[in-house]
């Protein structure tokens, strides 16, 4: 919205030029910014407004002024105006300093903008420039640490998986928790939507097209989005053209990614020792390396699966400019990023055209169009899938080669069976894990997505202060996915005699969303002190979803496993399809009043109607209110030297709103869905609905202060917030013996709260002519607490059970809940646990008792099996909270002449992680590889260790798989060196000289992303967690080094 201001001032300038009077002399000069770079478009004029001009692209101006002129005023948006005496000078150059009062900024809000000083809600602006050139297929993956209260988790290194964004905590238990994302006023389709790959729908927005991101956090800011605001709102504004000479920018970077940390697995020699020890302890003969003549290998399976240097490149060329009436922004982008898993990649082709035309002062029309194509490549990522890329890499036998003398050259057993060849062992890997080095190269998981996001708007300004805007937004997304599984090995294994024998799958899904918005903005100032601002409108959103899929298995020839399902390629063919339609219709209004820019009041209301709810229950009203006070504008403050010197700006604000969270599907209806009996057509109950269902409600409270200190060099924002979430839709379990589909009927019954504090600090530590140092810091602390669940038989349930987590009243959502490990019995190597009553028990792995049976123990070195007992679900206890409690980031930016150096440290913690990767894969007791930690296992009486005696086949029992076990629960705290960016901007004057004005700016940059993590967490990465705090064989994180150039023409 700075643009709009600029346009206004430019228009004013033209006006001035037209009215220029007789001149006496010409004064000229150069206007530069604080870094001594030329500033174009600076208004230069005399106070009476009779003479004026603006600087050109080189910052130069030339102005005829009358002999009587005493001073010139230099003004530029977001910079402090300078008023300089002219004297007899013919040459007057000036360096403008950035505006020190951030309060003059505007905040993008729903259906309009507000001046920051008048804004009484809570939002965070994210400067898109900060990461426009960072390597990332989409912006969500770079949002982490950028804004207080916004917790962003990149759970793993798959580049096409969207980040998990939680604004002010987890705001729902069963429904959507993601923020609403609005691009240029149109709520867009978001999520992970492709059929055969991870896919990031936000990847359709080119990060370098983004002008501004505003994260709306509290109730008053989000209430205008009513029933969709519970998870917060992210408003993305794309770049617009500016009037004046056109500007072409070309940005390019190349880079490499590798795994930040790989899993530490056994080598071949250690594997042989461990595998045979497992067997020996179970009374079985050795199987590893029983046939050494078959050759010795030491295969790095992770190396077979992961790229060491995954390349990335990105090219963007953009053109922006405009004439008197029309402005335009146009960009083209190509990006190609490879993930660290060899089959993982994302390619994006993105075009944007934003155009605005002011026909006259009454009528403005414009269009923002983004056309994009994303190609994603992926693989089986199942955390314990036999063909899972990481799951297999962790388990495949290191003393076996990926290659063998077969027709394909790979170690597979086609056509005899789907196993790998055992190499020097007497058997191949247990559970038939696939030769993933082969399957990742021969199987294909591909998605091709086309997206059109378009919005057309018209604005009428019939009288001053009143604006009608009508906007038609269209979001069309098509995903065409393919999966081809080779019959030779892995998930598609088979021959004509049996097995899947190759599998082909295609799906086509199309989302089409229309959003028609009509609203007014009306501004009125009375008596120079009463300011009114009104927004009111209507919006209708319609969405349809179409899905079609086809698959063929038992394919006739390997030839067909290439690109697409071909008619007749397979003898078993299936089709699938679906259709859905939903709509949302709304009326909304917002009223702002401020008195003398000191006292502020805002009231918002939205009434939403939703197709998902029962007739009579479709509509809900979501109100919000906020107040603000700027004591720094009061006389007592201004008159107090202490206050006014120290604190230039001080605003207190408070807000309350009740917003909602929409429901999907038709949860009010009881329905019968397709239920074919051995392919004889049938229908059966698939949902017992609840006609009383309504929105989840989220009452958001916020109290905050905005401050500027030390002449604006320091800005401080602090907020306390609380979200009271009620009517949470819970799938209230029905006893399984009722036989209700899904064993649940949904009700609006749960309650939860998030409360916390947010702090943001910006500090311009130093600001010299050639050197500046800025520090930005943010801290958030979000405490989640479940306050109410449902009743069973009139009695509140103590918790909702799950396998690793429970949802318990009085605790944060999804606490990790399981068994408390007591270590290893040093006398016999048995794993030990504490029962709920505190008694010590051991799971027996030795002769003299039932293997796998539980017995009491007197101490951790008691060799005797006590009385037989059990470890039951009642023995579980809280092992930690699965969601981070505190998080934030610290960014330092140093500038010296043309050099700029920035690094960002990000931190997060207060959570525990249940390391399922360790539990199920790294410590398995099958004929599979292990993590290095297993070398510290108990081997003989007296050994003090936390790793129990090995025992073949008892992995599930020893590690209590599928249950949380404190042995594998670790702290999730970390500090991460998120980004280091170093750039150099050449002296533009010299560049222009050297290139005869063709090239205007040159900037080189090199950057490192995700360079290091300080953590005690032993898994691949403490960010590799699900929403419930579980880490299950997720791809390691990427570390990326890149370098690039930015050219301006």
């Amino acid at each position: 919205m700075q643009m709009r201001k600029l346009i206004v001032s430019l228009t004013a300038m033209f006006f001035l030029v037209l009215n220029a009077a007789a001149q006496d002399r010409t004064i000229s000069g150069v206007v530069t910014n604080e870094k001594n770079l030329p500033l174009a478009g600076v208004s230069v004029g005399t106070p009476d407004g009779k003479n004026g001009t603006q600087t050109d692209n080189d910052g130069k101006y030339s102005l005829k002024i009358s002999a009587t002129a005493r001073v010139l005023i230099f003004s530029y948006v977001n910079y402090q105006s300078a008023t300089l005496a002219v004297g007899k000078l013919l040459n007057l150059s000036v360096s403008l300093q950035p505006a020190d009062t951030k309060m003059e900024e505007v905040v993008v809000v729903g259906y309009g903008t507000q001046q920051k000083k008048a804004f009484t809600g809570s939002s965070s602006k994210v400067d898109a420039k900060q990461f426009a050139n960072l390597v990332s297929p989409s912006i969500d993956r770079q949002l982490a640490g950028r804004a207080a209260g916004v917790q962003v988790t990149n759970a793993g290194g798959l580049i096409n998986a969207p980040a998990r964004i939680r604004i002010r905590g987890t705001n729902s238990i069963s429904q959507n928790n993601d923020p609403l994302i609005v691009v240029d006023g149109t709520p867009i389709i978001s999520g992970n939507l492709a059929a055969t790959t991870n896919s990031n729908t936000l990847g359709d927005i080119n990060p370098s097209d983004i002008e501004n991101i505003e994260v709306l956090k509290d109730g008053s800011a989000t209430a205008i989005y009513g029933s969709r605001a519970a998870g917060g709102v992210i408003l993305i504004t794309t770049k617009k053209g500016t009037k004046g000479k056109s500007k072409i920018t070309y940005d390019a970077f190349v880079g490499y990614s590798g795994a930040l940390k790989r899993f530490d697995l056994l080598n071949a020699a250690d594997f042989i020792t461990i595998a045979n020890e497992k067997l020996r302890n179970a009374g079985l003969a050795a199987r590893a390396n029983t046939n050494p003549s078959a050759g010795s290998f030491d295969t790095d399976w992770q190396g077979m699966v992961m790229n060491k240097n995954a390349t990335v490149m990105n090219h963007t060329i953009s053109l922006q400019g405009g004439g008197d009436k029309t402005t335009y922004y146009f960009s083209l982008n190509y990006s190609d990023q490879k993930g660290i898993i060899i089959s993982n990649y994302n390619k994006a082709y993105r075009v944007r055209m934003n155009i605005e035309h002011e026909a006259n002062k009454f009528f403005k029309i414009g269009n923002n169009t983004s056309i994009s194509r994303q190609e994603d490549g992926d693989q089986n990522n199942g955390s314990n899938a036999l063909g899972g890329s990481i799951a297999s890499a962790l388990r495949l036998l290191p003393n076996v080669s990926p290659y063998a003398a077969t027709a394909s050259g790979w170690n597979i057993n086609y056509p005899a069976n789907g196993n790998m060849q055992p190499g020097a062992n007497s058997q191949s890997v247990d559970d038939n894990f696939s030769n993933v080095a082969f399957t990742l190269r021969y199987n294909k998981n591909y998605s091709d997505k086309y997206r059109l996001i378009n919005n057309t708007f018209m604005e009428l300004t019939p009288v001053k202060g009143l604006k009608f805007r009508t906007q038609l937004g269209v979001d069309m997304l098509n995903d065409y996915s393919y999966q081809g599984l080779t019959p030779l090995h892995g998930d598609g294994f088979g021959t004509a005699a049996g097995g899947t024998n190759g599998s082909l799958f295609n799906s086509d899904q199309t989302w089409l969303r229309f959003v028609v918005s009509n609203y007014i903005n009306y501004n009125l100032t009375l008596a120079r002190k009463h300011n009114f601002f009104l927004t009111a409108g209507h919006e209708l959103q319609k969405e349809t979803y179409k899905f079609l899929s086809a698959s063929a298995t038992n394919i006739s020839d390997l030839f067909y496993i290439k690109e697409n399902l071909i008619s007749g390629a397979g003898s078993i063919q299936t089709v699938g399809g679906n259709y859905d339609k939903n709509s949302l219709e709304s009326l909304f209004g917002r009223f702002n009043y401020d008195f003398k820019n000191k006292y502020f009041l805002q009231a918002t209301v939205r009434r939403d109607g939703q197709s998902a709810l029962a007739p009579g229950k479709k509509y809900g009203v979501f109100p919000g209110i906020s107040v603000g006070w700027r004591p720094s504008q009061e006389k007592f403050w201004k008159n107090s030297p202490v206050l006014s010197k120290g604190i230039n700006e001080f605003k207190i604000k408070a807000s309350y709103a009740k917003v909602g969270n929409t429901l999907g599907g038709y949860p009010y209806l009881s329905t019968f869905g397709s239920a074919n009996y051995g392919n004889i057509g049938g229908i059966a109950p698939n949902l017992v609905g609840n006609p009383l269902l309504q929105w989840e409600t989220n009452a958001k409270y916020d109290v905050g202060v905005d401050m500027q200190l030390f002449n604006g060099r320091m800005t401080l924002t602090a907020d306390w917030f609380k979200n009271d979430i009620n009517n949470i839709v819970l799938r209230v379990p029905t006893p399984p013996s009722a036989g209700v589909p899904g064993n649940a009927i949904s009700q609006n019954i749960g309650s939860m709260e998030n409360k916390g504090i947010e702090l943001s600090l910006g500090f311009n530590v130093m600001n010299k002519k050639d050197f500046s140092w800025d520090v930005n810091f943010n801290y958030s602390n979000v405490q989640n607490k479940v306050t109410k669940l449902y009743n069973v038989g009139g009695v509140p349930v103590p918790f909702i059970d799950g396998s690793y987590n429970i949802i318990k009243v009085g605790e944060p959502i999804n606490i990790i809940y399981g068994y408390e490990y007591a270590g290893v019995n040093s006398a016999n190597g048995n794993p030990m646990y504490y029962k709920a009553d505190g008694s010590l028990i051991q799971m027996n792995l030795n002769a003299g008792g039932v293997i796998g049976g539980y017995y009491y123990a007197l101490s951790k070195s008691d060799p005797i099996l006590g009385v037989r007992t059990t470890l039951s679900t009642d023995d579980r206890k809280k092992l930690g909270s699965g969601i981070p409690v505190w998080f934030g980031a610290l960014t330092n930016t140093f500038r010296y002449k043309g050099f700029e150096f920035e690094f960002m440290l990000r931190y997060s913690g207060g959570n525990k992680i249940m390391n399922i990767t360790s539990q199920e894969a790294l410590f398995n007791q099958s004929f599979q590889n292990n993590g290095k930690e297993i070398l510290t296992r108990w081997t003989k009486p007296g050994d003090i260790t936390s790793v129990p005696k090995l025992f073949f086949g008892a992995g599930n029992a020893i590690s209590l798989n599928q249950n949380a076990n404190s042995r594998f629960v670790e702290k999730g705290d970390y500090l991460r060196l998120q980004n280091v960016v170093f750039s150099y901007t050449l002296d533009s004057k010299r560049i222009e000289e050297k290139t005869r004005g063709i090239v205007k700016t040159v900037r080189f940059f090199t950057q490192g992303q995700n360079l290091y993590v300080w953590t005690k967490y032993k898994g691949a990465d403490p960010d590799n967690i699900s929403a419930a705090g579980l880490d299950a064989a997720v791809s390691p994180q990427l570390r990326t080094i890149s370098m690039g150039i930015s050219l301006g023409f």
Partner: protein
Amino acid sequence: MNKVIIIFLCFFGLFTASSCKKQLDTTPFNSVTDASAFETADRCLLSLNGVYDAAQSGAYTDGSFRGYPFGAANIEQGDCRGEDMLNVQAFFQVTYQATYNATTANNVAMWNTLYALINKANVAIDGFRKAGGKNVLTSAVALQYEAECRFLRAMAHHELLLHYARPYMDGNGTQLGVPWRDFPINSSDAVNLIRATPRATVATIYNNILTDLDFVETNLTAVPASFVSPATKNVRVTRGAAVALKMRIKLHKGDWAGVITEGNKLIPATITPLPWTAPVCPIGSWSLTANPDGPFADNASVESMFSIRNDPLDAPNVNGVLPKMYGGAGFGARGLVSVSPVIWNNAGWLCTDKRRTSLVAATTNASGNQSQFSTKYRKYTTSDDFAPQIRYAEVLLTQAEAEARNAAAVSTRAVDLLNIVRNRSLANPAVEQYTAGGFATKNALIAAILLERRIEFLAEGKRWGDISRNAVDPNFTTGGIPAKAVNGTDGLANFVCGAGYTPGQAAIPYSDFRFLWPIPATEVVQNPIVVQNPGY
């Protein structure tokens, strides 16, 4: 200001005219509402098929289709609880080694899908009664559909008893059974009605099952005409299947006379084991195929009285479907459940028995080693082996056992019934067949019949039922969960006909809590009136 308001209204009106409340009045496009599911005769039939579907493919705990309860899982679980089939890797290890707890997925899924089937049956029964009342269905068809549902309801309740309750013969049905459900639960209010219903006694459930089956027998024709084309007589319930299930139920009750009464409806008075002549059932013409392989080579054989239908396009997934689980890895299957040396090496199973060759084959297992695999399920690519529930052979062997037990001495009728099944698999029946004189006592005959059941129904999931019902029989008890070969045992060296076998996995006594499966924790928590089995 007036001007402003007028402009505003015009402008606003122009663009909001396009919207109307209709936009919000959409309904699903992929499901019909419950109100309309029984609106037409065609939909009634679809709803009936949906009940069968619930028997074939209920949702596993992760939502996938693993053939619970009857599409595959009752067979796999029934076998893996016994000693005659062997779990190769981890897949059924929890069942095989009895290390389940109240959250173990397989046990939870069995409970959940059986009750899901029961409720779908009850919803459909309610729908059919109403459709019959409104003449959407003729009363005959409404009764037929209801009968089919009540058969499935009865079979499901019995399967529940097998796993979650002590056998009938322990205390004559006085032990704690499972909750009985016989009304539709399709709303929160209906759910509340069951919260006061505790686990019924085993005897109550047996009585209710028999009441249902009597209804089925009365209201089904031998083979309804509509089952002929398209041919669904093997995969829908017929009167013969109902009587056969009644025999099974009464056998479990130890009501030998009752079994005989039912069996006489299905078995001709004269049977000829030598020369072997296939007996033909008076109700529905069910019979034995000439070869033991017949019911497996042909899903629609005359012997297959009731199977659950699987189809290439609608079969349990690779984590459940019978040919993948039981088929050897060498056949392109997963090789996860092999034949156990316990039965293979049993001296009572003749080495020349055709079932050793036509229904078992040596091939690689999931570990890549050689083992013996059942070939009863052989559609390794298309997965469309039906899941056999009742074969005519079972009718005959059940009747043989009842006759043997009911008689004071060695029953020749029982010997004939045993031979009619066994002789077709013998290399030389004239020499090898049983004779009445060959049995010193009636118990020796009963033991032979029980062994014959293990051989004939190997890999058909019937083993657990026999272990369970005989657990308190002093003469024929296995003592509880029998000793088994060690999980993962493989290598053909272990398989030697007639050599006997000493299993390495210890037996679990009948008195041990693990003889029963735990009631799922979700049930006990949600519905505390359903008490947990002791020990869990």
